[in-house]
């Protein structure tokens, strides 16, 4: 041992034995596993952001590809004209063809959904999320209030809790089948927005109930006891002294439910989603038609463009672009929930 090292070491310092080195190695292994997971997640995110950014953003103002965000999907026609390679969406192609009839002879390849934008899908997804989360929040918060505020532990409540737990484990495709069997066929709603709402709402119900109950539990018992001691009824207590304090927590935790609703494809496949629809959701004749129309939705659109059309340089743009927009929406929702939750946890100290 060198003299300087001998000065720095004191008697109780741990000695680097073989066993310790092995232990360190094993810690490193655990650490590697952790960061490997993050790396995988980061790689997927990175690939989609990298490849999708070219479609969604652009270098000149307004820096966002407005057509992609505001237009409906179109077929893309790729053809050669006077020695130049042209790529035109269906609409422009027809106009071009009318001006230059000789184009008809040129060899053209066309790819569905590869031009235009994805606006109807964004609109459909937003509508689906708003409707279903409203239903789920209403039912879920009321159920949670009952479970946390009114219910006495007993056979019935245990049964309810078991049902909630099991409902959380039902695969999303089974919810899709159920929604199809009940809303689409038995109620005769056909493939419609409202059928999708209820299917998705029932799917996230356990998430919302659990989240709401957690928030209600976080409100200290003293709040309730104080109110009851002053002669308020139970309902008055809940309304004035529990809900206001629990509501921020309920909403933040439920955002995770929103992310789940927005991200699911299987339940809406046969209850609410259309592969393609010309009209936008609000272009209906009667107000009632609004509820009973199918919509295009982002997740379903991704499924369609990634499985039903070939992978090549022309279709890739819309595929990655749609995936990026979708991921951004879901990530925004999820991130806001996570951040808000951590904020809330630090702030609420009663």
């Amino acid at each position, binding site marked *: 041992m060198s003299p300087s090292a001998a000065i720095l070491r004191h008697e109780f310092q741990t000695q680097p034995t073989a066993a310790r080195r092995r232990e360190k190695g094993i810690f490193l292994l*655990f650490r590697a596993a952790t960061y490997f997971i993050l790396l995988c*997640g980061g790689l997927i995110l990175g690939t989609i952001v990298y490849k999708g950014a070219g479609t969604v953003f652009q270098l000149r103002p307004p820096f966002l590809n407005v057509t992609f965000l505001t237009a409906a999907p179109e077929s893309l026609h790729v053809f050669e004209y006077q020695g130049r390679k042209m790529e035109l969406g269906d609409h422009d192609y027809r106009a071009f063809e009318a001006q230059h009839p000789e184009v008809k002879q040129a060899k053209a390849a066309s790819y569905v959904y590869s031009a235009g934008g994805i606006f109807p899908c964004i609109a459909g997804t937003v509508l689906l999320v708003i409707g279903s989360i409203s239903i789920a929040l209403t039912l879920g918060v009321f159920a949670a209030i009952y479970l946390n505020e009114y219910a006495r532990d007993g056979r019935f409540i245990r049964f309810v809790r078991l049902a909630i737990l*099991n409902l959380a484990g039902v695969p999303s*495709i089974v919810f899709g089948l159920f929604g199809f069997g009940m809303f689409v066929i038995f109620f005769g709603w056909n493939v419609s927005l409202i059928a999708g709402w209820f299917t998705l709402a029932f799917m996230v119900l356990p998430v919302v109930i659990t989240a709401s109950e957690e928030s209600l539990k976080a409100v200290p018992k003293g709040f309730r006891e104080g109110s009851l001691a002053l002669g308020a009824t139970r309902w008055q207590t809940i309304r004035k002294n529990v809900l206001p304090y629990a509501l921020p927590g309920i909403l933040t935790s439920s955002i995770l439910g929103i992310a789940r609703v927005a991200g699911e494809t299987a339940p809406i496949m046969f209850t609410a989603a259309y592969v393609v629809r010309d009209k936008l959701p609000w272009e209906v004749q009667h107000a009632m038609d609004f509820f009973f129309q199918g919509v295009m939705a982002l997740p379903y659109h991704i499924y369609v463009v990634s499985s039903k059309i070939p992978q090549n340089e022309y279709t890739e743009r819309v595929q990655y672009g749609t995936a990026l927009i*979708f991921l951004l929406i879901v990530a925004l929702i*999820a*991130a806001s929930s996570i951040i808000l939750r951590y904020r809330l946890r630090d702030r609420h100290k009663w």
Partner: protein
Amino acid sequence: MIPARSLPHFLANKSRIRVFGLDFDDCIRVFFGGNAVISIIVLALITYFLFREGAGFFGQNYRNLAVYRQAGLEYVDYLRAQQDDHTALTRYLSDLRVRQFASDLRQKMSPAEANAALAGFDDFAGKFSDTVEPLRTLVSDLTEQASAIKTKFTVMEDKQEERRQLLAEGKSAEAAKVVIQPVDFAAELKPITGTLPAYRETNSEFARQVERVLAQAPALATADLQARLDRFKQLTRAYLAGFPAIVARLEAWDYTKPVPRRQAFTSFLFGREWLTASFWQDWYGILPLLAGSIMVSLVALLLSVPLAVGAAVYVNQFATRAEQRFIKPCIEFISAFPSVVLGFFGIAVLGQALRSVSQVSWLSWIPGFPYSERLNILTAGCLLALIAIPTIFTLAEDALNNVPRAFTEASFALGATRLQTVVRIIVPASLSGIISAVLLGLGRVIGETMVVLLCAGNRIAIPDFTAGLAVIAQPVHTMTGIIAQEMGEVVQGGIHYRALFVVGLVLFFLSVGINYVAQRIVRRYRISIG
């Protein structure tokens, strides 16, 4: 204060409006209670509607199987099986040729020379494959006849249905006009069963031919290939030995023999084929789908459990606070990845990347490498692992967190190192929680739809387990995938439609069962500290 009793009645009950004997507060209570019951109702409704749409399947499947027998399809299938077995043997020979050719090329022969050297073998293989011709002619004739009978029967059923509907609508005159031609199975089947003597003759000639060709088998260069050729001879002998059994089965076959009722169930639960919209006979056997689901989930769990549990241990025991605050939200963020985006990533990037990795020469020791199918069990399993990781991680971390501090402190006080404490104390103490986390992860993975639909390859067949671990390079189809893929294309109320609901029912009970077991484990073995 004045006691309530002394007040006039209307004053004492101020704002106590009673509905069905309940006051306002009770009403609210009941209303909230009603909302809580909704989850039970939904669960019941799911079960009810799955049963409602799926229950008819078994009756329809029974009729499907009955027609299969009555129309003589079953009879013809015995012969078809014989023919298919021969085709399999021929394929074995061509596989042998490919191997021989490759080994010749390795020994610096030019392709032309190698082909010339294989001329004798080709002659043998050609003769062998020709022996089946007479049987093939017979089978194709019979196939046509049998499907004609089946068509007649379906037409008759359709007509009957038409008449029934007309009668239900009260149009008896039109109903009487619907011509129903009854199918006389006995008469229709006569030409088919009548070929039995001819078949016997063809068959014995066929057996003689195969024997003769087999005797002329050429010798192969290397011992390895010669062993394979001997195996081929052995297989062919076994094939020939099975002939009398086939003849006996044909002789014993009787279309009037009723199909056992339970076969409607067994052919679904243990059926090895899921074959729909075929010209010949549809089969609804869940085994290939179940096997696919299980294989994909197994691969996903094998990948995700070590990673997720390792990460949970790390974050809970070793990580600094700053690291914790970074890692936990990140993993939660991964759980928010929509599965369809992961599926798209699998199709667009991962499938291709994994295949390229598999073709790297120094990795060829890994079973199944190199492989050629881009979308297979492995691709889907990798992505599903990423879906399972956040679930397992979060729950396992919770379980580790619940281990009382006293345990850790006691262990340290006794002089155990950090690692010893983790491995011997903390992990065993939270094992029930970790197991239930893994089970819940399994439930999540087995019910996942979009990833397997996009990335599992969608080949409906039981994976070939004889390949050993290389099975992970095969494409499969899953229960969730089949529902998502075929639900949009089926006739409502048809047998195929109902079969998909029954698959959904199986999936439902499977995942609820897994979930239930996981909850039980947690509750049963939760450590309690006084």
